[in-house]
C-alpha cells in the first residue's frame, strides 16, 4: 500500500511533486447549511510563504513559495492547523471566513511528528466575533462527519461530507516515520483542506490532513483524531513541545502454540514477543529481545498486540502515545519463564531521527576545496536520490544494525563544485567519510574541526574499500576564493543544529 503523502494546495515544486505521486492533504471548510454558519465563525484561511532549503546548495536560503491551508480557532485565542501548512514558513497571514482583511500570524508551536501546529495572531482584534471550537471524542464507525477548508477549485469556504470508514494506526506522511491513531473518512479531501476541522454534532472530531490522489485510491481521506490533538495541546501547556515518546522496540504476535508453550505461556491469547530493542532508546537495558509483554499499565495485551481502550481495540502502544516526556510506563513481562514487572521511564524522545523528513531546519554542511560534506538525513536522500549501495545500507540500517554507535551522524561527500583542485574526486561522491587525517568523523562538526588543523596534506578516508582522497593544502588555499566566487557560495559551513 502506498504511503499517504501530504500536499498543500500550494505551488511549490516539492509539494506539487508529492501531489502527483499520491496523496493530498486537505484543508476543507464546509459551509453546510446550519453548521456552516456556526463553523464559519471559527474557521481560518491561512496563507503561508515558506522557504524550503536546497540541500544541493545548502548555503542558499532556498526557494520562496506560498500556499493555502485551513485552520480553526480554539480556546485561548489560538489557531490550530497542520504542521505541514506552516513548515519552513517565513511569513504567515490568516483570514477569517467572510472577512477580507489579512492578519499577520506567528507559529507558536509546531509538532512535525504529529503534523499539528498552533498559531497566534499579533492583533487581538482578530478574534472579535469568533468562536473557539470544542474538541469532541472519537466518532463511531459509519457516523457522518463534515470537512471544512479551502481546497482547490475556488477561493471560498468548501464543505464536504462523509462517514467514518476506519479507525487505525497510520503513518503520518509529513515526517514519514511516525504513526499515530488516524481516522479514515470517505469525504472528498483535497489540497487546501489541510488543517481544517472535521465536525460532528458541533464539535471537532478531527483535523483533515492527508489522503490519496485519485489514481491510487478513491474516497480515502484521513484526519488526525482528537486524542492526538488533545495530546498536542497538553504537551505545549508548559510552553514547549516535547515530541512523542516511544518504547523503541518491535514486537511480534504470539499465535503459534509451540512458541507459546516454549515461552511458558498458556493458551489464553495474551502476550506479544519482543523482537528488537533499539540501543539508546528508553527500553534499552530494561527490556530484552525475547521478553513477552503481558500487560501495559495494567491493561492486558492480546497476542496480536492490541488492548481494549475506551471501548475499542487499539495497538498497545496507544498507551505510550498518550504519555509525555518524563512519564513512565509499567510493563508486566515474562522473561525466561519468570514474571516480572518493570517501569520504563520515557525520559527522552528517540534520538536517531535521521530517517524522518525534517522541517524548519537549515541544512548543515562544510565546503572545503570545492568538496561539499553534509550529514545524511531523509531530506538529503530525497534531494540527491543517490544510487550507492554502501550509503543506502548505512542509511537503511542505521538504527537496526546499530551503526549510530560508531557514528551518531553519517557524513557524506555529497557534491563537488568542480575545480582543478578536485579534478579527480568525482569517484568519491556519495562516499561516507570515515577519517580525516586519522581523526574519526562522527559528526559534521568533526569535518570542520579536521580541516581547521593546518597540515600539508588533507587525507580523507572513506568508509569501505578504495584509496583515500588527498588534497594538498596549498592547492586548497589557492582555489578557495575562486571556488566560492564562481559558485556563489556565501558561507563555507553551517554547523548549528
Amino acid at each position: 500500500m502506498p504511503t499517504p503523502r501530504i500536499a498543500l494546495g500550494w505551488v511549490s515544486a516539492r509539494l506539487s511533486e508529492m501531489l502527483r505521486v499520491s496523496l493530498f492533504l486537505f484543508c476543507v471548510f464546509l459551509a453546510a447549511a446550519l453548521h456552516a454558519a456556526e463553523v464559519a465563525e471559527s474557521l481560518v484561511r491561512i496563507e503561508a510563504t515558506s522557504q524550503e532549503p536546497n540541500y544541493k546548495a545548502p548555503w542558499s536560503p532556498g526557494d520562496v513559495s506560498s500556499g493555502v491551508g485551513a485552520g480553526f480557532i480554539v480556546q485561548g485565542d489560538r489557531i490550530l492547523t497542520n504542521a505541514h501548512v506552516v513548515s519552513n514558513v517565513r511569513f504567515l497571514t490568516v483570514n477569517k471566513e467572510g472577512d477580507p482583511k489579512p492578519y499577520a500570524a506567528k507559529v507558536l508551536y509546531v509538532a512535525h511528528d504529529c503534523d499539528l501546529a498552533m498559531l497566534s495572531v499579533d492583533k487581538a482584534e482578530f478574534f472579535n466575533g469568533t468562536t473557539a471550537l470544542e474538541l469532541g471524542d472519537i466518532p463511531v464507525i459509519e457516523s457522518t462527519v463534515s470537512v471544512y477548508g479551502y481546497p482547490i477549485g475556488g477561493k471560498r469556504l468548501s464543505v464536504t461530507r462523509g462517514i467514518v470508514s476506519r479507525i487505525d494506526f497510520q503513518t503520518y506522511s509529513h515526517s514519514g516515520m511516525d504513526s499515530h491513531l488516524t481516522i479514515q473518512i470517505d469525504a472528498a479531501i483535497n489540497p487546501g483542506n489541510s488543517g481544517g476541522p472535521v465536525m460532528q454534532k458541533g464539535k471537532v472530531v478531527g483535523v483533515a490532513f492527508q489522503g490519496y490522489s485519485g489514481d491510487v485510491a478513491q474516497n480515502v481521506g484521513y484526519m488526525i483524531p482528537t486524542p492526538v490533538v488533545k495530546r498536542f495541546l497538553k504537551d505545549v501547556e508548559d510552553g514547549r513541545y516535547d515530541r512523542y515518546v516511544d518504547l523503541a522496540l518491535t514486537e511480534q504476535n504470539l499465535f503459534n502454540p509451540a512458541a507459546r508453550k516454549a515461552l511458558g505461556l498458556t493458551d489464553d491469547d495474551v502476550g506479544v514477543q519482543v523482537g528488537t530493542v533499539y540501543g539508546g532508546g528508553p527500553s534499552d537495558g530494561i527490556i530484552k529481545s525475547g521478553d513477552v509483554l503481558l500487560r501495559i499499565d495494567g491493561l492486558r495485551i492480546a497476542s496480536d498486540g492490541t488492548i481494549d481502550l475506551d471501548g475499542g481495540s487499539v495497538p498497545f502502544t496507544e498507551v505510550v502515545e498518550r504519555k509525555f516526556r518524563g512519564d513512565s510506563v509499567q510493563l508486566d513481562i515474562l522473561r525466561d519463564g519468570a514474571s516480572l514487572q518493570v517501569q520504563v521511564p520515557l525520559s527522552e524522545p528517540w534520538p536517531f531521527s535521521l530517517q524522518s523528513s525534517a522541517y524548519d531546519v537549515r541544512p548543515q554542511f562544510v565546503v572545503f576545496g570545492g568538496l561539499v560534506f553534509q550529514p545524511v538525513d531523509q531530506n538529503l536522500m530525497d534531494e540527491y536520490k543517490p544510487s550507492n549501495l554502501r550509503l543506502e545500507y548505512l542509511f537503511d540500517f542505521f538504527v537496526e544494525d546499530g551503526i549510530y554507535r560508531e557514528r551518531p551522524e553519517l557524513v557524506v561527500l555529497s557534491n563537488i563544485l568542480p575545480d582543478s583542485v578536485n579534478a579527480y574526486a568525482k569517484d568519491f561522491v556519495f562516499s561516507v567519510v570515515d577519517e580525516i587525517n586519522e581523526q574519526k568523523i562522527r559528526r559534521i562538526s568533526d569535518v570542520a574541526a579536521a580541516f581547521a588543523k593546518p597540515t600539508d596534506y588533507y587525507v580523507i578516508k572513506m568508509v569501505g574499500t578504495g584509496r583515500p582522497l588527498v588534497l594538498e593544502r596549498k592547492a586548497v588555499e589557492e582555489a578557495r576564493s575562486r571556488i566560492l566566487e564562481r559558485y556563489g557560495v556565501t558561507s563555507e559551513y553551517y554547523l548549528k543544529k
Partner: protein
Amino acid sequence: MIRLLVFLICLSPLLAADTPKIASPKSPIKHPYAPVEPSPSPLEDLESLEEGDALVSRKLAESSILRVNSTNQAYDFFQPWLKKSPISRRGVGVLVQGGRVLVTAELVMNSNFVELEKATTAEKSSATVERVDYDCNLALLRPNDPAFLEGTKPLALEKSLRVGGEATVLQVETNGEIAQTIGEITSISVGTYPLENLGLLLYKLRVPLQQRDGSFTLPAVSDGRLVGLVMRFDARSQSADLISTPVIRHFLESPAKARFPRMGIAFSSLRDPQFRRFIGLTEPGGVYVNEVSPHGSAAEAGIKKGDVILALDGRPIDQDGNYEDPNFGRVLFSHLTNTVAKSGTEVIFTLFRSGKLMKLPAKMQAPDRSHVVSEAQLADQPPNYVVLGGLVFLELSRPYLQEWGNDWINTAPKRLVYYDAFQNELPEGRGKIVILDQVLPVSETLGYEAIRSLVVTQVNGRPVRSLVDVAEAAKKPLKGFHKIEFEEDPKTIFLDAAAVEAHQKALIEQYSLPALQRLKGEKSR
C-alpha cells in the same frame, strides 16, 4: 569474494571511454622491456580460408559452422525442488579442433537437450555438453553421432586485432543460407563477461545485425579466421560484444576443470597528481591497490593494500592500468594475469611500496571457491534446500536474488542485497548466509505465514554457517521445540518438534515436495 573484486575492477573508472589508446604502430612509446611473444598454439597451424566472400561463406557453412538448438530448464530458487518451464535457445556454433563445437555457455546453461544442425542439409545430431566455463562464457559440445562431423573443418583463430578492423558476423537463414553482416571493431578492452562478472578481453563490434532466431552465439570471422563469438547485442546502438580470441584460446588450451586465474585485487587509477605526490610516487604510471582479497593470487604473493603496481613481467602499466599489447594495443593489465597467464603461471609484479621499488613473483591461480559466500551463478546444478515443518531454508546466492527480476538490486530484500554486495568484507569464517526463504503454511507454522527472506543465525542453539548446520541442528530439538533465530525481526520462532516429525509425510503430500531436503556437495562449516 574474488569474483566481486574483479567486478569492482570492471566498474572502476579505469575503463572509461577516455582511456588513452595508442593505436598507431608508429607510437613513440618505447620501453626497455622486450615484448613477450605470444606462446605458439596448435590452432594457428590450421589452414585458413582466403577466397572471395560468397565462397568463404559457403565453405564455412559447409565445413565450419553449425546451428545449435538447446532446450534449457533452470531451477526455481523460490521453490528449489522445482524446475521452471523449459526455454529454447538457438545459436550458431563454430567447429574447433578435435571434433568439438564451440558455443557460448549461456546458450547451453541448464540444458536438458542439445542438438546440432548442419546449415545446408538440416541434418541433425544430438550433442553432449562436454565442457562449460561460466567465467569466460564458453562451452564445448560433442556430437553424439561420431560420424556427424565427417567432412567438416575446424576454424582457425585470428591472432591480433586493432580498433577500426573489420569482422563479419555469420547468421544462418531458415533456408540454410549464410547471412553475412560486416561490422567494425570499435573497441578492444577488458570488460565484464556475464554470469561470473569476470573482467576479460572483449571486442565491441558495431554491426547492423538483423533479428534472426539464434541470437545466443554468433561467430564473427575475418579472412576466414574466427575473430570471436557474439555474446551480447544491443539493437539500439547496433553494438555487439564479442568473446575475444585470447579468451577462446585460453579456454581451449586449459585442462577441462581449470578455471581462469584471477589476481584477487581491486585497484584504482593514479591520475591524481596530488595523490601521487602524497604517496611519494615519482615513477610514471602505476595503479593503486585498494583491496586484496584473502586467499587470492595477489594475497598469496604478498601484495598489499596500498601497493602501486608499476609493471607486470616487465611491461610498464600506465596510470589507468593499461599496458601496450603487441596484438591489441592499450589493454588493461588484468588481461595478462587473467587470460594470457594460465593457471599456475608465475608473473612478476614491479611494485612501489613505502617509497621503494620491488619485484614480487606471483603465481596466478583460479580462486578457491570454498571461500565464496554468495555464488554468482549456480547453473547446471539443483539448488540445495532444507524444509523443516514448512520452513524453507536455502543459502544466499546471486541467482536467488535474481528471482526478484531484473531490478533485483532495488526489489530484493535489502539486507540480502548488501550481504551479496559486500560479502568480501564479512569476517573470515562467516560461512554461507542461510536464509529462511518462505513458510509453506501448515498447522505448526501458525502465525509465521508472513515470514520471508530472513537471515538465520542459529537453529536449536547451534550457529548456522551452512545448510548442513540446519539439517544437523534439526536433529537435536531443545526440550521438544525447534528454536530458530534470525538477524532481524521476529528474531526467534519455535516449532513443536514432535508435531513436525509426525507431520512430515503430510507436508510432503500437501505441497508435492519430492523430498524434505537436498544437500548435494554440502559440507558442514
